[in-house]
């Protein structure tokens, strides 16, 4: 019996919303935008985390990252993580020290040289020219698509291994092995080209391999004229079951040879935790901003419902005269508000699916739309409807039938 009352209400809500289509749409727009932005932000955050864990799996758990500064992996607040971006105090001597630690079998420094390369006078920015050792191939499991990776033979030579997107942008061809370009005014020969790597917005190594140019460590030191800017050193534990011992050994070796400087040796898991912490904080923050638009959308619904209630005072009076109880009038307007907010929620979810698709098609971000966030979005839109149509509905239900019937 109750069901019929409700179905009648949904029908009448539909009629009254359809009667003012434009107004209903703009009322829903706030909720649509709110839901779409929250869902998109969360799916981008989830996508980043997925990329990150993919990279960790790719590098393997036995790879450690040596960085300068005290980084406390258990305290994953964003402030601590910012130190990842600070100026590094790792010196080439430290790299040599790490090479002598018996618990490590591969040492690959990331010596940042410059971020531009030129070819025939054309500059290409946004690249990472990085000096590293041949060990990087085994640490980061790099397997060039064309040519070869750096080896002992290429030491101190002006050769470079290009990331796939650098190769494409610089030479406009897939296989530019043997061609030449300039770094810091010096000519370099392309020695190899890496395959497309599943990097993304953020990578564990803080370097997108696709837009990197790897040159021999010794060449990099020569270019930098002794001033090394080693972002990090990736090392691989000799025994994959004794990763923590290897980390401790590396830590103590560095402390002995380079007193006064502080180093952190982080496992991939710790790095991921730190990065996840940053992503979570950022996601929460942006979601909160997006959530405000949802709040504004809800207030918009309340506004329009209040106007609707006062416009339809006479209708309310008549409905009461023919026997609608206060609760039935309340239900009618609650359901009308709910139709607005849930309608907005559904359109918002569809819009976020579309945004998700467009992001996947036209950007290299990889948003991951999990169903829990869609469920949450649906629940939130219902909640918004309940909360913001409560006041207008209570106002409608409380109207005095005589005064309501007398109103124009």
């Amino acid at each position: 019996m109750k069901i019929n009352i409700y179905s009648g209400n949904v029908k009448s809500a539909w009629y009254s919303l359809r009667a003012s289509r434009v107004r209903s749409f703009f009322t829903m727009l706030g909720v649509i935008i709110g839901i779409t932005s929250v869902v998109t932000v969360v799916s981008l955050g989830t996508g980043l985390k997925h990329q990150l864990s993919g990279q960790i799996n790719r590098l393997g758990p036995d790879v450690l990252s040596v960085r300068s500064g005290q980084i406390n992996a258990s305290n994953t607040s964003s402030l601590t993580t910012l130190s990842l971006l600070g100026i590094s105090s790792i010196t080439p001597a430290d790299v040599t020290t790490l090479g002598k630690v018996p618990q490590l079998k591969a040492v690959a420094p990331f010596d940042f040289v410059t971020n531009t390369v030129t070819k025939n006078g054309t500059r290409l920015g946004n690249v990472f020219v990085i000096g590293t050792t041949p060990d990087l191939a085994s640490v980061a499991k790099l397997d060039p698509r064309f040519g070869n990776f750096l080896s002992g033979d290429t030491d101190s030579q002006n050769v470079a291994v290009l990331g796939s997107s650098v190769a494409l942008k610089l030479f406009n061809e897939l296989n530019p092995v043997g061609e030449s370009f300039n770094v810091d005014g010096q000519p370099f020969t392309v020695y190899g080209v890496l395959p497309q790597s599943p990097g993304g917005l953020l990578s564990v190594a803080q370097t997108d391999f696709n837009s990197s140019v790897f040159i021999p460590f010794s060449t990099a030191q020569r270019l930098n004229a002794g001033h090394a800017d080693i972002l990090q050193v990736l090392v691989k534990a000799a025994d994959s079951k004794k990763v923590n011992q290897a980390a401790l050994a590396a830590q103590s070796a560095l402390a002995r040879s380079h007193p006064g400087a502080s180093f952190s040796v982080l496992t991939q898991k710790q790095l991921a935790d730190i990065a996840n912490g940053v992503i979570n904080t950022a996601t929460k923050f942006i979601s909160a901003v997006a959530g405000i638009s949802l709040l504004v959308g809800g207030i918009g619904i309340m506004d329009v419902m209040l106007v609707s209630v006062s416009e339809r005072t006479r209708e309310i009076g008549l409905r009461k005269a023919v026997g609608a109880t206060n609760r039935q009038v309340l239900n009618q307007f609650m359901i009308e508000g709910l139709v607005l907010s849930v309608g907005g929620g559904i359109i918002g979810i569809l819009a976020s699916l579309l945004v998700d698709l467009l992001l996947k098609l036209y950007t290299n971000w990889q948003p991951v739309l999990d169903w829990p966030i869609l469920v949450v979005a649906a629940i939130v839109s219902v909640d918004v409807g309940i909360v913001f149509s409560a006041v207008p509905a209570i106002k409608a239900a409380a109207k005095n039938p005589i005064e309501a019937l007398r109103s124009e």
Partner: protein
Amino acid sequence: MALIQLKELSKIYGFGDATVLALDEVDLVVKRGEFVAIMGPSGCGKTTLLNMIGLLDKPTHGTYLLEGRHASRQRADRLAKLRRDRIGFVFQSYNLLPRLNVLDNVALPLAYKGMSPVRRATKASDILEIVGLRDREYYYPRQLSGGQAQRAAIARALVNNPEILIADEPTGNLDSTDSKVVMELLSDINRRGNTILMVTHNPELTRYAQRVIYMRDGRIVGDEKTRLGEVAKGARRLYYKLRPFSDDEILSGVSALMKRVETKPSSRRNTKKKAKNA
């Protein structure tokens, strides 16, 4: 047992200096099946009385017994259900919901009863047959003439088989032809056994009533049984008072006050009385 019994019913609006005594200790008994017309000048409390009887308003003092039970001391939801099941309303301005078609408008009280949509439509359709609007079921109120709209409103008032039909100037917005149709319909409904209370300003309409109540300043000042088909005596008096001037005078556009100088003393007294009444 009387269907409706009012005992010393009073209604006071406002407070302080702005207090209005809308109903002043009204006593009234209405029996089942009566057709009661209520007449009186504007603001005399006719509509307030109907609102009380229709359970839309609560009295300040006094008791209202509907079928022997205290009706005015119920909770709001109980009153709503009593309105739904016992009382049908017909308004001067029809009050059909513009967004619903005629059928849905008529079925509205049934929806609040929780009847299934199919049964609602069937029942509303049957009632529309009675008022002669079966072929207008899917029209919207704006597509109906005044008389049709009022008949649809009467159908809505009847759909729950209420015992009491309350009509507040049902022909107020209608021309004489439509008025006649609507009044014949109300008369038919009354013959089927429904009790009808109707407020009207038109003395002609007392022809349809069995009883005429005259009100003034919140009190019932006259209660007259009348034969069907005849204009009530009190109403007739009122009828002639409402037309103090001849058609010629109205057409000439000259005020009766200016003509008073030339009239005989007797008629001058009459004019004074009229002025006082107006």
